[in-house]
Each structure stands twice: as structure tokens, then as C-alpha cells.
């Protein structure tokens, strides 16, 4: 079952962080990002999570918490309202506490969001960039679910070490399980305890669309699963839940 608080964290931790990659790798997005400099703070509830998205000279940086003095503050009284805005369903608008006069910044962000949607959901997107964005989303969503969803937290406590998800000769994300602290970051880990490697970007994109029989893919060596398979078993349940949250 979907937990709105967890989904809000996925949107703030995993989905927003994709804008960093987008501005870096996609020329069109980079051009958009160059049109405005400033910080946007996303805030949920009085004591809920906060994430700052900084746009500066065409680069985007996403940081946990309130960083600096954001020019725009988007306050969502509940997690559900934030989720509705991200998913484009139901009522989902923030209370703009600050920054109404900085409409250009919001306009730039909306344009970047449209570009993101075109790559992730449009026809004939740049395949490698889409795979990289989805890899980042999956890795960070797994970490968020493992760290914050009550039933997954218990499972996460049973594993310790580093899981690496990667496409062969392509993008990677690694997730560190250290008790209650679960973190994800892009790139390869020096010595991961578990490796999940997808033979091709196409296979990975199909997996992200829930079109891959994972066990069969492993046996046919289209996917490599190596190392701590107990960790793999647990991570697989988190992976399955990413689909539930971001369907």
C-alpha cells in the first residue's frame, strides 16, 4: 500500500535529484537552466521533509533541507498535496509562501519539468539519458523506501553493506545500508557487496517498465547478480515497491 509520506520523500529525494543529471546531460535542459539563477525550497508540513533545488549558471544542485536563502518557497501542507503536484493527479498545488514576484524561476522549473517528462515518458527519448535518469530514480527510491517505510525499515535492518545497480559499461548507482541509515549516490562503489548488472540499457528500461522476468534474465545471463544475494532478496522487495510508488 502506498504511504503518502514515503512517496513525498521519493519525490523530493529521488525525482528532484534527476534535475541535476538533466541539466548536466541534456543541452535543451541546460539552456533552460541558464535562464535563471536562484533557489527553490520544497517544504512539506510544519515538520516534514524539505529539499532545496539550486539553479546556478546552468547547473542544478539538489540538497536535503533548507539551504541558503531560497528565493522561492513552495509549501505543501500535506504530503498528499505535494504528491499530487508531482504526479499531476488530484488537487496538488503549493501555498507559495515566498517568491510570487519571482515568476521566472517557477517558469524555468516548470519548463525543466516538462523536458524531464518528455525524456521519461515521451516517444523516442535519448535512450542513454533516460536510462541514467531511471537508474538514479530507482537507486534513490530504494534508499528512501528502505529508510522510511515502516515495514521496509525492518527488512533493511537485516542487511548491511553496499548494493550497486549498474548497466554494463554504463551508468551506476550505489546504495549503502548501514542500520537505520540508508543512502544512495550515483556512480560505481569501490567494492560493492551486491552487484546487479543489466546487460543493456534496453533491458534496464524494460525492467523499469516492469516488463522483465528477472529470474529468467539472470539465468540467461542477461543480468548479473553477484555477491550477497540475501541482500539481493531484500533489495528486490524494495525494487518491487518502487514500481508501486512510481507507477
Amino acid at each position: 500500500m502506498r504511504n503518502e509520506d514515503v512517496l513525498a520523500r521519493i519525490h523530493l529525494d529521488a525525482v528532484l535529484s534527476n534535475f541535476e543529471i538533466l541539466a548536466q546531460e541534456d543541452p535543451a535542459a541546460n539552456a533552460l537552466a541558464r535562464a535563471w539563477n536562484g533557489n527553490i525550497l520544497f517544504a512539506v508540513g510544519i515538520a516534514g521533509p524539505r529539499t532545496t533545488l539550486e539553479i546556478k549558471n546552468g547547473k542544478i544542485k539538489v540538497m536535503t533541507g533548507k539551504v541558503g536563502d531560497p528565493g522561492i518557497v513552495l509549501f505543501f501542507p500535506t504530503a498528499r498535496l505535494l504528491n499530487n503536484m508531482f504526479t499531476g493527479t488530484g488537487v496538488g498545488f503549493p501555498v507559495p509562501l515566498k517568491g510570487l514576484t519571482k515568476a521566472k524561476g517557477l517558469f524555468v522549473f516548470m519548463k525543466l519539468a516538462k523536458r524531464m517528462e518528455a525524456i521519461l515518458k515521451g516517444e523516442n527519448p535519448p535512450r542513454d539519458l533516460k536510462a541514467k535518469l531511471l537508474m538514479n530514480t530507482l537507486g534513490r527510491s530504494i534508499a528512501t523506501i528502505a529508510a522510511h517505510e515502516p515495514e521496509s525499515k525492518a527488512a533493511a535492518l537485516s542487511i548491511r553493506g553496499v548494493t550497486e545497480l549498474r548497466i554494463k559499461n554504463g551508468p551506476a548507482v550505489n546504495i549503502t545500508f548501514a542500520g537505520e541509515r540508508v543512502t544512495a549516490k550515483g556512480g560505481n562503489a569501490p567494492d560493492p557487496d551486491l552487484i546487479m548488472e543489466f546487460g543493456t540499457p534496453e533491458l534496464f528500461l524494460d525492467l523499469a517498465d516492469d516488463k522483465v522476468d528477472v529470474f529468467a534474465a539472470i539465468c540467461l545471463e542477461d543480468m548479473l547478480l553477484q555477491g550477497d544475494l540475501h541482500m539481493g532478496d531484500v533489495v528486490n522487495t524494495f525494487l518491487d515497491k518502487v514500481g508501486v510508488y512510481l507507477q
Partner: protein
Amino acid sequence: MAYTFTRSKELFQRAAKVIPQGIYGHFNPATTIPGSYPYFITRAKGSHFWDVDGNEYIDYVCAYGPMILGYAHDRVDEAFARQARNGTATMPPSTLLIELAEKMVEVNDCADWAMFAKNGADTTTWAVVLARGYKRRNKIVLANGGYHGTQSWAGTNHTGITPTDRSDIIMVPFGDLEAFQRVVEENKGQIAGAMFTPYHHPVFEPQVLPAPGFWQGMRRICDENDIVLIIDDVRAGWRLDIKGSAHYFGFKPDLACYCKAIANGYPISALVGTEKMRMVASKVFQTGSYWNNSPEMAAALACIDEMQQIDAAGICNARGAQLRKGLEESAARHGLQFKMSGPNAIPFMHFTNEHNFKRAQLFCKECSLRGVYFLWHHNMFISAAHTEADIQKTIEVADEAFKIVKEQFGG
């Protein structure tokens, strides 16, 4: 000549088109080393099997336990075939039903009665139902990492299993009497049963034998609180002690579940119990289309009799001890930190200086490529068909594999 797996892979591709996972459940080879293990076999005899690419293996998986006397065992197979010619699923059942129940009562230390099903999970579920019916209570205590089947009450956190399915299940660490006592006190008068394996045999981690006094303590707490003590002897049963693994560890449960080695590979399982549980067993309705099939009962009778005659558990223990000694000594010669945990007949191998199994996976891969079929993630099984020559050959192969592990990992 190095083993190759071309035909196995071709067949798996064919299978995956019409079968989810290609091969499903615990038989799925994703937990082997794909590309270095066979997926399908053509025949098996004794302690060996031959795969579809013509490779021969000494087998230490024994179908995850059912094979104990050797594949294609003449006496057991003939008993099955003879009875099959007289009918299989019949109503009324064959008199073999009585004979097999009498045999279980004769052989098993805690059996005052016996009932039969097909799989281990049938009997663990049946036992849970009896426990709940005994004092009309709901809660069941299980051990973390214990395995009692994939049915929803026993499964954990997998797709399709809901928190509601597990709402009356309480987990405790295996071997922790204090934790069990605490749970009993916190749930006074609510716990129906406690189901454990006779020793701890989880996957992905070393096995743990019960500390002295543990089972006697469990028995006492269960008696004081009217809790039904259930032993899931599906995996370990018959390999430690013909009288049951509870007898091996010196206690008597109220219910015990058997399957796997009971009929050397033919599908039958047994739930046995003490006099105390007879009345509730007479009230509960549990059944299945094939639970009274007679050929499997004939096979079980022949298998149990043969196990008694040759002391199968004793042979498994002796061969397992030979294997353990040989592997541990070979590993030590290469400067590797390698141990076998659990009983000799049901060993789990691990390198003590790693927790991510990378050495174990390389070791198993190299053994498979040389004709020895090991598992790195799960305990293995020794059979009475394994010969001293099998074990010696295995140790020679393992020596080569340890050398490669040493070269790659340094220690």
C-alpha cells in the same frame, strides 16, 4: 575437459517463453552461478547426475533433501512401480495408509499417530491449524530466518504477502530462550504454538546448533503455558536420526512435520503427533486431492525400511564428516578461512572472513566446472549413496577450486 552448458541455456530460453522464471521456486538456478551450472538433467543414479550437455556431477544438493538413498534406487522405485500398477489415487484408499502410519508410529519417537500429505508446507500448515485448534488460540511463534514453506503465514515480505497474512505471527531469534519466555509473557494465554526447526538452518548464513538445555527449556515453557511445540523436521528429518531430529536433540515435541527424504524423492509428507494432540487432529478438516495416493506410500515404506536396515543417518554422518574434514584441511593448506557449519549430514559452507559470499561463489563455480555440484547459499545434503570415492574425488576438485580462490582473493 571444461564443462559447457550450451544445451542447458537453449532449453532455458525455451522454458522462459512459457514458464515464469523459466524454472520457478527454489529450483530456479539464479542462486547458482549462471553460465557455470547446469539447468536441466537427463538422468540421475546413485549420488551422480548427468546434465543435458553430457556433464557428470557428484551431487551434494540431493534435490534439496529428498534424495537420501541415491537416485533411481531399485528397491524404492520398484515398490512405487508395483503399487502404481494397482492404482494410484483411489477412493477408498489402499491399506498402505494403515501400514505407513503404523511404520511412522513404530519408528518416530514422538509419533502416537500419523497423517499424510504431499509437501512439507502441507504439514506445517496442518500443524499450525492443529495448534490453533488445541486451545482455541491464534498466535504462532516462529524463529527469524526459519523456513516453513512459502504459504502466506510462513512467507516474509514477498510480493503478494500482506501484513494481515502475518498478523498472528510472532518472530523471535532461534535459540534465545529468554526472548521466547518474554514473548510468552507479553502474550499470556494467546500463543497457540511455537514452530521451530530442530536446529537453525537459514539460507545465506551459517547454521546454528541448539545450545545444551535449549530444547528442554522450550519444552518446559510450552508445557507451563499450554503452547503446542511443533518441530518442522522437513529438511533435517531422517538424516540425523531415524527416530526424528527431536530425539537426536533429546526432547519430545507435540507435533512433527516430515517430507523430503521420507520416500527418497516420491511426493509424500507426514504429520505426526503425540497422544495429547490426537483429539484436535480428529476434529480438523485438512485434505488434498493426492494426499492418500498409494504408490508414494509404498515408496515411503520401502525407503524407511531401507534407511533402518542400512543406518542411513549413520552413513550420511560418516560421509559428511569425511567431506568436512577434507574440505576444511584443503582450504587451510591454501591459507583460506573456510568452515562447514551444522550437522555433518547437512552442512553449510562459508568463508569466515567474508559476508558477501564472493569467495564462496567463485569456489562453487570452479567446483561445478569440474563436476562437483555444491551450493553456496543454502545447506547441502549428504546421502547414503555417496561413497568414500565420491568424497575423495570431491576433495581433489575442491583443492583446485580453493587454489583459484586463493589466487583471486589472496586469503
